[in-house]
C-alpha cells in the first residue's frame, strides 16, 4: 500500500511539475494566435521528453551516477565541456525566466511592480534549495502545481465546440493570416518548451538524490509515462483556453496576466486565485529545479561532491555554483529585460541545445558496460533515434526561423 501511494504521489508531482513558465507562455501565446493547430508540436515534445526522461531515469537507477559525470567519462572531457557549456547557458536563461515568472505571478496577486519581488524571490529560492529536503520540495511544489488543473476546468466550463477543437488538433491547418515560417517557428518553440533540457538533468539527478536502484525503474517509468503526458494535457488546456477566449478577440498573449484571463472569464475570482497559486508553484518549483540543475551539471562534470543528500558543508562547491546561479538569475531579471521575452528566447535556445543534451543520454543508455541487462531495447533505441533526427531538424531550423520571423512577430 505504501508503495502504491508513493507511485501515486510521484505521478501527481510529475503532472504538477511538468508545466513551467515556458509551457505557460508558449502554450497561451500559440493558442491565442494559432488555436490548437500546433497541438501536434506539444504532443511530439511530450513523447520525446518521455523517451529521454525514461532513459535518463534508468541510467540513474542502474549506475547511481549523474548524467554529466557519465557523459564526460563516456564521450571525453571536450565533448562533455561543450555539452556542459551549452546546457548551463540554456538552463541559466531558463532559471532567469522562472525567477521573473514568480515575480510576475506575485505582481498579479498584489499589483506591486514585479521588480520589487525579484530579490525576495531569489532569496527564497536559495533558502529553499539550502534548507529544505529534496523530497519535500519536490512533493510540495509538484502538488501545488496541480492548481493549474483549473485551466482544464475553465476550458470545460467555457463549453467550446469540442468537435472544432479536436478537428484543429487532428487536421492542423495554418491560419490564413499567419505565414509558414512563423507557424514553424512557434512549433519549435512549443517543442523546445516541452523538451527543456533541465527537466531531464533534474529528473535523473533527483533519482540519484533519492537513491534509486534498479527496483525503482518501474516507479520512474510510471512517473514518466503517466505523469508527463497528463502534464502535457495541462499544456493543451492552457492553449485551449487561449484559443477559445483570446483568439476571437484578436488578443495576442505577451504577459502572464493574459494567460490567466480565460480562467477569470470562465470561472471567476476564486478560480483565478487558484490559477495564480498554480503560476507561483509552477514557476517557483521550476526555479528550484533549474537552480539545482546548474549545480548538478557543473559538479557532476568536474567530479565534485554534489546533492542535497549530503550536508552543504560536504558539497560546498555545488552549493556555491547554485548560489552564483541565483545571483545571476536575479541580476538578469533586474536588468528589466521583459521576463516573457526572456522565456520566449529561452525555449527557442533550448531547442538549439537539444541534440547536445539528448544524444549523450542515448549513447550512455545504449552502452551495456554501464547498463548491463538494463541497456536500451529496440523500442527505446528506435524512438530515441527518430527523436534525435527531429531534435536535429528543430535545432538547425530554430535560429534561421527566429531571424526570418523577427522572433515570431
Amino acid at each position, binding site marked *: 500500500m505504501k508503495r502504491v501511494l508513493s507511485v501515486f504521489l510521484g505521478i501527481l508531482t510529475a503532472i504538477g511539475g511538468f508545466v513551467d513558465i515556458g509551457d505557460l507562455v508558449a502554450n497561451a501565446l500559440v493558442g491565442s494566435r494559432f488555436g490548437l493547430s500546433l497541438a501536434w508540436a506539444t504532443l511530439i515534445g511530450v513523447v520525446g521528453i518521455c523517451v529521454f526522461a525514461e532513459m535518463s531515469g534508468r541510467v540513474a537507477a542502474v549506475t547511481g551516477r549523474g548524467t554529466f559525470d557519465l557523459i564526460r567519462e563516456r564521450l571525453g572531457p571536450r565533448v562533455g565541456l561543450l555539452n556542459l557549456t551549452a546546457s548551463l547557458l540554456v538552463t541559466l536563461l531558463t532559471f532567469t525566466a522562472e525567477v521573473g515568472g514568480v515575480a510576475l505571478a506575485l505582481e498579479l496577486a498584489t499589483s506591486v511592480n514585479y521588480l520589487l519581488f525579484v530579490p525576495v524571490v531569489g532569496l527564497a529560492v536559495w533558502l529553499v534549495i539550502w534548507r529544505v529536503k529534496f523530497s519535500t520540495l519536490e512533493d510540495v511544489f509538484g502538488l501545488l502545481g496541480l492548481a493549474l488543473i483549473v485551466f482544464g476546468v475553465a476550458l470545460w466550463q467555457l463549453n467550446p465546440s469540442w468537435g472544432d477543437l479536436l478537428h484543429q488538433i487532428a487536421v492542423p491547418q495554418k491560419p490564413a493570416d499567419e505565414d509558414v515560417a512563423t507557424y514553424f517557428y512557434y512549433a519549435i518553440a512549443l517543442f523546445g518548451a516541452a523538451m527543456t533540457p533541465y527537466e531531464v538533468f533534474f529528473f535523473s539527478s533527483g533519482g540519484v538524490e533519492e537513491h534509486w536502484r534498479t527496483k525503482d525503474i518501474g516507479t520512474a517509468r510510471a512517473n514518466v509515462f503517466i505523469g508527463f503526458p497528463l502534464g502535457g494535457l495541462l499544456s493543451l488546456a492552457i492553449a485551449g483556453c487561449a484559443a477559445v477566449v483570446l483568439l476571437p478577440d*484578436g488578443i495576442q498573449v505577451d*504577459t502572464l*496576466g*493574459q494567460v490567466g484571463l480565460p480562467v477569470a472569464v470562465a470561472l*471567476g*475570482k476564486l478560480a483565478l486565485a487558484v490559477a495564480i497559486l498554480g503560476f507561483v508553484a509552477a514557476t517557483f518549483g521550476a526555479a528550484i529545479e533549474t537552480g539545482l540543475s546548474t549545480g548538478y551539471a557543473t559538479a557532476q562534470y568536474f567530479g565534485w561532491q554534489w546533492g542535497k543528500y549530503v550536508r552543504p558543508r560536504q558539497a560546498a562547491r555545488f552549493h556555491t555554483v547554485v548560489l552564483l546561479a541565483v545571483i545571476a538569475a536575479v541580476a538578469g531579471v533586474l536588468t528589466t529585460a521583459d521576463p516573457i521575452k526572456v522565456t520566449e528566447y529561452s525555449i527557442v535556445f533550448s531547442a538549439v541545445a537539444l541534440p547536445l543534451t539528448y544524444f549523450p543520454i542515448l549513447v550512455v543508455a545504449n552502452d551495456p558496460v554501464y547498463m548491463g541487462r538494463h541497456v536500451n531495447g529496440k523500442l527505446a533505441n528506435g524512438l530515441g533515434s527518430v527523436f534525435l533526427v527531429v531534435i536535429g531538424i528543430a535545432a538547425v531550423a530554430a535560429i534561421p526561423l527566429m531571424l526570418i520571423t523577427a522572433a515570431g*512577430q
Partner: protein
Amino acid sequence: MTRALGTIVAAAGLLLGGCVAPAPSASAYEAKAGMTADAAVSEVRTALVATDAYLLGRMGAAYLETLLVEAEEALGSVHDTFDSVQPPAAPSADSLRDTLDPLLQDAGSALTELRIAARRDRDDDLRTTADDLTGVAEELEAFGKQHAS
C-alpha cells in the same frame, strides 16, 4: 597616412550611411500600419475583457490593475514604434498616418482613464470608459483588416 585615414573615414561614412533605415515603400508602410493596428487591438481588447470580468465580479482589483498598466504601457510602445517609422513621401502614407495616429491616441487616453478609474475603484467610470474604448477597438479592427499585409 592622411590618405589612408581619409579612405577609412569615407568607408565608415558609407557604411554608416547604409545603416540608416530608409523610408519604407508605400506598401511596406501600409503593412506596418496594419500590424500596428492589430497590436493595438490586442492591448485594447485585453483591457476590455479584463474590465468586463472585473465588473461582473469575476476578477480582483489587483489583477485588473496589473493588466491595465501592462496594456497601457504596451500600447504606448506600439504607438511610439509606429511614430518612429519615417513615412514615405506619398499622399497615401500621410493619409494612413493621419487616420491611425488619432486612433492610437484615443486608445491610449482611454486606457489611462480605465487605469485611473480602476485605482479609484469607480465602477461607473470604468463602465463608461469601456464603452468608449469599445468604439475605438472596432475602428482599429476595421483599420487592421483594411490594411492587412
